[in-house]
């Protein structure tokens, strides 16, 4: 008898397939297929209008998809108390009742959630010297963000969806918040998707990336894997057709002396004419964002050609 041991499957927090959302005639998100394993902190990156907010709102169940399917925390986003309890979503506009105090929000949360850690919010806000009894409308933008973030965490969700949560925070507060997030994930049972433009911040805490541009998914995967799949090639030769045939050139910059390419590899590069080097996250992100602005890129390229 051979005991068959089931291979422990890595549970996925988010799995979408062909997800699209159309507003009137414009697609805010097209054919989005992503997977986020449980326990990751995923950086959702993309230029303005790329569809980041739409994706987060779809995952939170605030928006209905036009087409496609998704599974979040093992279920379809729906109006069900158990599903809602498993999701924490913080919108970019920091939705808080301006005339209510932080304490009012904490008490409301206690009435509206099955497991609610109001004490953690009080502790955090006291540490940050944010008054609990003042109307949140009178607090500064950064303080409001802190209140909203603490409230979102107090719900003890399994999946946390944060839409530019640190935009209003100063660098120190930002670092503190990201540290808290990393601790919460390390404690287990939490997955985070975090959208931001601050790649340096994301690089510090995130281990997964979803890159959107022009309403489509450009990259999705573990950051280490994604970085390993890309290389920068620098060479003197002007003919890059062989490289372009074998690999996917994300960005190409030509000067009279040399050609610099950021490529997504399809196997090893065995062309001695090019020197290869690793790519950083920021560089990679900028290269993919640059694709979104082809005219600017074309201009750069033509300047290089003229000389």
């Amino acid at each position, binding site marked *: 008898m051979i005991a068959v041991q089931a291979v422990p499957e890595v549970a996925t927090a988010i799995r979408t397939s062909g997800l699209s959302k159309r507003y009137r005639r414009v697609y805010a998100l097209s054919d989005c297929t992503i997977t986020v394993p449980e326990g990751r902190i995923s950086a959702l990156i993309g230029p303005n209008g790329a569809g980041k907010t739409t994706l987060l709102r779809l995952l939170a169940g605030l928006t209905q998809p036009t087409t496609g399917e998704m599974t979040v925390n093992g279920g379809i986003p729906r109006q069900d108390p158990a599903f809602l309890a498993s999701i924490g979503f913080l919108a970019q506009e920091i939705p808080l009742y301006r005339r209510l105090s932080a304490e009012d929000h904490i008490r409301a949360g206690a009435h509206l*959630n099955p497991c609610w850690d109001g004490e953690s919010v009080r502790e955090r806000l006291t540490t940050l010297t944010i008054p609990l009894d003042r109307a949140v409308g009178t607090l500064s933008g950064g303080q409001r963000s802190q209140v909203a973030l603490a409230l979102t965490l107090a*719900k003890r969700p399994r999946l946390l969806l944060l839409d530019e949560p640190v935009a209003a925070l100063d660098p120190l507060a930002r670092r503190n918040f990201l540290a808290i997030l990393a601790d919460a994930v390390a404690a287990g049972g939490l997955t985070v998707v975090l959208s931001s433009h601050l790649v340096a911040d994301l690089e510090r805490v995130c281990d997964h990336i979803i890159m959107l541009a022009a309403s489509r998914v450009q990259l999705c995967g573990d950051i280490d894997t994604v970085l390993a799949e890309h290389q920068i090639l620098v060479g003197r030769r002007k003919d890059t057709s062989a490289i372009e045939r074998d690999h996917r050139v994300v960005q190409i910059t030509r000067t009279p002396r040399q050609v610099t390419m950021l490529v997504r590899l399809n196997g090893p590069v065995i062309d001695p004419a090019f020197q290869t080097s690793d790519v950083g996250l920021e560089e990679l992100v900028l290269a993919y964002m640059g694709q979104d602005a082809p005219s600017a890129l074309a201009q750069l390229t033509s300047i290089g050609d003229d000389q």
Partner: protein
Amino acid sequence: MSWLIWRLHRTQLYIAAALLAALTVLLLVTGLQMASQYHSALAACGASHSCGTLGSTLFLGSHAVGFLVIMTLGVPAVLGLFWGAPLVAAELETGTGQFAWMQSVTRKRWLAVTAGWMLLAAAAWGGAVSALVTWWSGPDNALQLDQFKPGRFDIMGIVPVGYALFAMALGLCAGALLRRTLPAMAVTLAGFIAVRAVVTLWLRPHYMSAITVTYKLLSPFSPTGSYWQFGQGVRNPAGQLIPAPNGAAIDGVPLGFLPASCATTVGRVLRPPASCRQVLAGFHGFITYQPASRYWAFQGIEFGIFAALAALLIGVTAVVLLRRDV
């Protein structure tokens, strides 16, 4: 859920309670004065056997308070405008809905509890104001018999509760559809006035077919109690409608439609001979009206119409809030 609703709307609730308390004091004081004024006038006219003309000679209360009471026509609209319209609209406009709807409470439950409390509040305020006005108008109505007439019918009994429910539901629905507070308020006001006008002018007279009584002109007839009159006139023996008198007339018939002998005067007073009386006997008066006994049936029908409209609007709000993106 209820706690959040209480916390969000308690200021409005306090203001509404204070206004209601002020109105209660005012109507209680003036109402008691009017009642005693009426009863002493009744006792005085009883002694002198002149109570028949009391309705045209006695004026109860003051014009200012009377005007205020008529203004309670607007109470349901105010409830819908300042309470109903901003409710869903502000959540959508300022995005605070994303706080409420991302807690572990479904939008269905959020709407059920919110709409439930708001409709209850609307019914309570509409009912309280209506009860006060109904009581306050008691003596005046006994005197003027006008509670069935448009304008009076609308501020007494149970219809104000129906209007308040409708206005609140209209506000909620407009807010969910338009997603902005000011337009929602404007639509609520316009919609409320339009529906009320249509129902009052074109539907209410036909809830039951009106009664027309034809009577001999010489034995005049007048319905009893607070009836609602649509038309009254006189027909000659040939059945032709006689226009309303505009000058000298006998029993409502202008002299021009009567034989010349009827114009006989003694001194300056008309003294028609017996032959004229015989001619008049051929004339018939008629009156078309809703009898006073139908008052509560009409109240019930009108309340039902507005309660049904409110239910419909809440249904639309639910569909919009649950199906569409929020």
